Structure formats: structure tokens, C-alpha cells
């Protein structure tokens, strides 16, 4: 057994892809604990753990965002945000955040948001007299709204791993996502007042009605998705297919889509799904091992030894996930930690829906916390800003996000009121 951690570290520092790293370590552990014959479950395990109803919504929501972004929808969203909040002090900061809210409705990924928006916002904010690091930090921080407001790839993964209703998770994410946007805007307003950031002159801002009309197709998409879930017209999977259809139609409204663009979007979807699936496959092997060796029970006992119950237990989990988020990609941390910790949390009487919102939010904070803040990496790479200075500039935003996270833990109602109102069972 002793050599397993050493092998893990060797694979880690050699830059081995996470899926193969976990897969190899799991296989070697089977051998090390003298359960080699159990390796014969591998093919069936991989198939069964991917053949999951809840995952079906994932590829089609990815495809929706791929089509929408290829259709050139981003500019219309920025213009519309500009027409609403551009005039205030710190206007471009507000626009940056509000654009992420709109973008969140068509994309389930924070990285996609920072990649799409950083090249536009950072130079523009710099030209208007903002500190470029402040511009980069606010872009990275607000991109986290993407996977909190539905659709959300990580919530689909969470739903698939825990059996929680993806529809309920999506609806539960709306209020925390909007609160996050509001909190970031408040912070931006305070900083803008303190540093004397400029606001846009109302005569050079896009006009409200034309920009609204231009953004309307993209803005309708989340309404269509959420509406069909809320009124029980469709399951999340069916919602994702409707979203694809909608994106194809809306794409004609913008730049127009040709077959080449659609093929590229579909291929990118398959590849992205594959990247997630190979991780899920490898982790499922580890999960089987944990069951056979009784690790989950041991972990439960270890956690029990702290004597934490209910909300206290959730605070404890938040601590673990914050640390994990500093070092791991969100889906990676999610697939690794959820099967280990979620069952105990639910035994503690924590709602699977609240748990999902808290943990997804939690891991998204990790996207802008160093040493590995994936959105910071993206912004830094696309704008040539120094990574560590960018991380430093992000600190106030991280503070606000952590405060909101703790509120989500303390007040389950923030997440649960909306799904309850629409008749979803959240317990």
C-alpha cells in the first residue's frame, strides 16, 4: 500500500491527465490490496456509470453554448448590458458583470465566459482608465455566475452522481446566481466610488430598445429552458434539446450559421463530453474500490469523530471544498469528492439540492483562488496580465464570494425557496 501515494505524486508531477492518473492509481490499488480479480468489473463499471439518465442533458447544453457563441451572440449581450448599467460610475465593471448574467443563460461554464469576455472587456476597460488588473479580476470573478445560473454542466454532473433532480438544482441556482451578481456589482460600485472609476456618457451608450431587440433571442433561451422545467413541460434532457433547436434558430438571427460551423460545434461538444466522461469513468473505478474496502464507512466514522451535525457539518465540508478548489479543476474536484462526502451530508439531513448549490458554488470560488484558479489562468493567458498580480486584484471579489457562500450554507432558504415554490421536492 505504501507505494501508492508515491506513484500518485510521480504521476501528478509528470503532468499526467487526471483521468488516467486516477485510473492508474485505482488499478494499482486493486493489485496492492490483493483484489486483482475485481479488476474484471472494469468494463461493466465504466459502462454502467456513464449510462446515467441525468448526464443526458450535458452534451446538448454544451452544444447550445457552442452554437450560440459561434453565432456571435456575445456582442449583442454586451451592448444590451451597456445600455442598462453603462452610465453609472464604474459602468464598465457593471456591464462586465451583467453580461456574465446574460451569458450564464446560454452557457453552463465559467471558463467559456471568461474566455469569451476577457478579450473584449479587459482592453476596453483599460482604455477607459481602469486598472487592467482590476478589469481582469472582475472578468474572472463574474464568470462564476455562468455555472450557477442554469444551465450548468457541474450541476448536471452533481445530479448524475447523487441522483438529485437536475431540474430542481437548475431552479435552485437562479437566486444564488442573481445574488452573486448583485454582490459583485455592489463591490464594484464601492470600489468605483473610492477610486473614481469613470461612467459612460449616456449619449455614446447603445440605445435600450434596439439593443434589447438584438439581444432578445439570446435572452429568451434561459426563459425557455427554465419555463419548460418550472411548468413541467420538459425534463432537463428535453429542455437541452429544445435549447439546441432554439440556438439553431437564433443563430440564423445573428451572424448566421453554416454547416461547417454546426459540425465544429457538434464535434467540440463530443470532445468536451469525452473529456468529462473519461474522468467519470476513472473515478467510478475508485468509487467501486471505496465500496469494497469500506472507505466510505471509514470516512463517515472519521467525520463523525468531529461530532459535527447539520449546518456545522456543511461548514466543515465548505472548508474542505475551498481547499480542494484551490488545487483542482471544478469537475475534477466534484467527481472525486461528491461520492465521498455527499452521502454523509444527506444522512445529516442536509437537502441534496442545497448541498448541490453550496458545493457547486464552493468549487466555483476555486476558479479564482490561487494557486490554481482556472478562470484567472484563462484571463491571464488571453490578456497577457501577470497571473499573481491578477490573483491579488481578485482578493476583494473572493472575499465577497466566500461571504455569499457562507450565507448559502447558513440560510438554506436562499437556494430552496424558489424550487419549493414551483413544487419541487427538495428534501
Amino acid at each position, binding site marked *: 500500500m505504501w507505494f501508492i501515494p508515491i506513484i500518485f505524486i510521480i504521476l501528478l508531477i509528470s503532468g499526467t491527465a487526471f483521468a488516467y492518473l486516477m485510473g492508474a492509481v485505482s488499478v494499482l490499488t486493486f493489485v496492492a490490496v490483493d483484489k486483482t480479480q475485481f479488476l474484471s468489473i472494469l468494463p461493466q463499471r465504466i459502462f454502467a456509470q456513464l*449510462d446515467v439518465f441525468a448526464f443526458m442533458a450535458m452534451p446538448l447544453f454544451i452544444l447550445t453554448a457552442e452554437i450560440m457563441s459561434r453565432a456571435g451572440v456575445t456582442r449583442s449581450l454586451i451592448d444590451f448590458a451597456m445600455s442598462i448599467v453603462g452610465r453609472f460610475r464604474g459602468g464598465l465593471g457593471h456591464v462586465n458583470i451583467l453580461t456574465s448574467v446574460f451569458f450564464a443563460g446560454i452557457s453552463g461554464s465559467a471558463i467559456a465566459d471568461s474566455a469569451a469576455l476577457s478579450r473584449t472587456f479587459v482592453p476596453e476597460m483599460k482604455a477607459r482608465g481602469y486598472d487592467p488588473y482590476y478589469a481582469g479580476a472582475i472578468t474572472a470573478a463574474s464568470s462564476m455566475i455562468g455555472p450557477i445560473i442554469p444551465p450548468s454542466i457541474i450541476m448536471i454532473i452533481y445530479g448524475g452522481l447523487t441522483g438529485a433532480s437536475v431540474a430542481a438544482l437548475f431552479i435552485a441556482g437562479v437566486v444564488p446566481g442573481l445574488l452573486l451578481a448583485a454582490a459583485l456589482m455592489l463591490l464594484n460600485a464601492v470600489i468605483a466610488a473610492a477610486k473614481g472609476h469613470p461612467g459612460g456618457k449616456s449619449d455614446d451608450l447603445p440605445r435600450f430598445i434596439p439593443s434589447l431587440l438584438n439581444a432578445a433571442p439570446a435572452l429568451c433561451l434561459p426563459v425557455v429552458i427554465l419555463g419548460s422545467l418550472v411548468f413541467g413541460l420538459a425534463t432537463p434532457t428535453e429542455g437541452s434539446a429544445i435549447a439546441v433547436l432554439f440556438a439553431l434558430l437564433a443563430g440564423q438571427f445573428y451572424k448566421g450559421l453554416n454547416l461547417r460551423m454546426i459540425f465544429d460545434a457538434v464535434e467540440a461538444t463530443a470532445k468536451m463530453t469525452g473529456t468529462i466522461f473519461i474522468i467519470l469513468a476513472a473515478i467510478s473505478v475508485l468509487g467501486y474500490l471505496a465500496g*469494497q474496502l469500506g472507505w466510505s464507512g471509514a470516512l463517515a466514522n472519521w467525520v463523525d469523530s468531529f461530532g459535527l451535525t447539520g449546518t456545522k457539518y456543511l461548514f466543515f465540508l465548505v472548508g474542505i471544498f475551498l481547499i480542494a478548489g484551490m488545487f483542482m479543476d471544478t469537475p475534477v474536484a466534484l467527481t472525486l469528492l461528491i461520492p465521498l462526502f455527499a452521502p454523509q451530508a444527506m444522512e445529516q439531513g442536509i437537502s441534496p439540492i442545497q448541498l448541490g448549490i453550496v458545493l457547486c458554488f464552493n468549487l466555483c470560488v476555486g476558479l479564482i483562488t490561487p494557486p490554481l484558479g482556472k478562470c484567472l489562468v484563462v484571463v491571464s493567458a488571453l490578456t497577457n496580465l501577470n497571473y499573481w498580480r491578477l490573483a491579488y486584484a481578485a482578493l476583494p471579489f473572493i472575499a465577497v464570494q466566500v461571504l455569499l457562500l457562507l450565507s448559502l450554507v447558513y440560510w438554506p432558504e436562499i437556494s430552496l425557496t424558489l424550487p419549493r415554490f414551483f413544487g*419541487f421536492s427538495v*428534501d
Partner: protein
Amino acid sequence: EVKIALDSKPDLDTSGSYNWAHAFGKALTEAGMEVREMPRGSVGNESEKFDQVSTGLLEVSLSDVRAIAQVEPFIYGVRLPYIFDDITHMDRVLKAGNIFDRVNEKLAEQDAVLLALAPLGPSSGVITTNAVVRSPADMANLRMRALDDAQIAMYQAWGSSGTIVPWGEVPAGLQTGVIDGYLNSPFVPVMFGQTDFVKNFSDAGVIIPLRAVIVSKLWYDGLSEADRAAVDQAVEVADAAVRVWQTEASERGLTALEEKGVTVQRLTKEERAAFREASKAVYNSGLMPAEDVKVWTELSDSNR
């Protein structure tokens, strides 16, 4: 070590299959064997459990009847509506038809053996959000959650309609009105905390919900003669225990619902007969081969 993969929470009050597993494990332990209960999900889903039984990595599994049907669809006869009056009738049919031998002949190709069919709980009734159901006609405007095409056919035979919804989406489906109800054992709405929105239970006694107890053939055949006798004995003990439990649980399941504010419709013999008559159409809907249906109905009729 004999690993028993459970299919439900280890709750002796509400789970018939756990009553079976518990009595079985206890009898094996008393016979000097080492037994380990594997919690639900810890060895994987239905297909994984079956696969591990067939490779010999798992000794005993409480499985979905569907696990057998993917090898021998004949077993689906136990899910024909109103095929059994009660569990003693079921036992007579299974014995008279040598059903286990017939199924095990096919299961042997997958290195598995069917040892028992354990009732999951009391007979299934119609569970609905708002509608009060005392006859098939009461269901005309309802859209019911179906498990598979066989259930869709049954709802259609009753003059209702069915739509396939995975279990995970059922609570949301009931609350949003995608579905108006489903068919299950009376403990289910209580166990899954659905009594806030499930308001009616009609005790129609449609089918006996069953779990298949499947064991690894490699393990079973490899046992010493004494050990195999102990296992066979333990099966009898467990079968007897779960039947005692089921009798007691039938009424308790209904009162448990009533305590949670669910209205229970206790149907008369005549009212049940209306459902039974309407269900006849399912038998010949072509979902099962006609000769299989004939075997089951003849066995059922001759052993009433």
C-alpha cells in the same frame, strides 16, 4: 465470505426484501458462514450487480426482476396484473409450474441461479396526487408514470394513459403535473417523503412487487454439500420470515399512509374485479409471447 448486495435501506419496518436478506444472513451466520451486507449502491447499479454475480465476484444479490428478464423474458409473467391473488397463490403457481427450474436453466448460461422471489412490500395500488380512484373509469383523465411499455399497455387497457418517467424524476413530475400518479406499494410514498403532494392511495392490489434473489452459480455449485444444504435451509427460513412480515405489513402500510394524511381507498372485491377484468387486455397485447402468457394463466387459474 458471503456478500449480500442489498437493494433497499436496511429497514425491517418498511422493506420486505431487507426482511428476506436479514433472515437469510442470520440463518447463514448461525450455520457458521461469514456474511457481509453490502449497502445499496455500494457494488454498483442493477446491471453491475448482475454482472458481478455472473463472474462470481458477488455471491448474493437482491435484484430487479428485469435482471432475469434480460436473460429469460418468461419471468415477466410475475408482473402480469392480477396474475396472483396473494402470495400463497403465487407460491402454489411457482411450485406447480416449476418456474424456478425453467428460469434457472437459462440463467445457468450467465452463471447465475435464482433462489427466491422476495416481496418488496404489500401489493401495489394506485398512488395519485389529486384523483380519487375506485374504478378504471376514475383514471380516464390521468397520465400515469409507467416503468416500461408493459405498464403503459396496462394503463391503456384501463382507459388511462402512461408515460415513462425515471424514478428520480417522479417527485418533480408529480408536483408539476407531468404525471398524476404511479403504481407502487403503500410504503413507497412514505419512504420517499412524497406525502406532501401524494394524497390518495387506492388499494387495487394489482401486482405483488418482487425482488429476485440471484446468487452466483460458481459460488453455489462450489459449496460443500453441508454448506449448500445450509443455504437452501436459509432460503426457506427467509421465505417464511418475509411472508409473516408481509401479512403484518399489509394493513400497517395503509395506516402509515393515513397517518401522513393520505386518503386510502379500500376497494371491495367487486371493485377490484373491475380492474382485473380491464387488465385482461394486457395479457394479449403482444408484449409477452402468447404461449408464455398461456402457461402463466393456466397455472394461475388451476392453482387458485
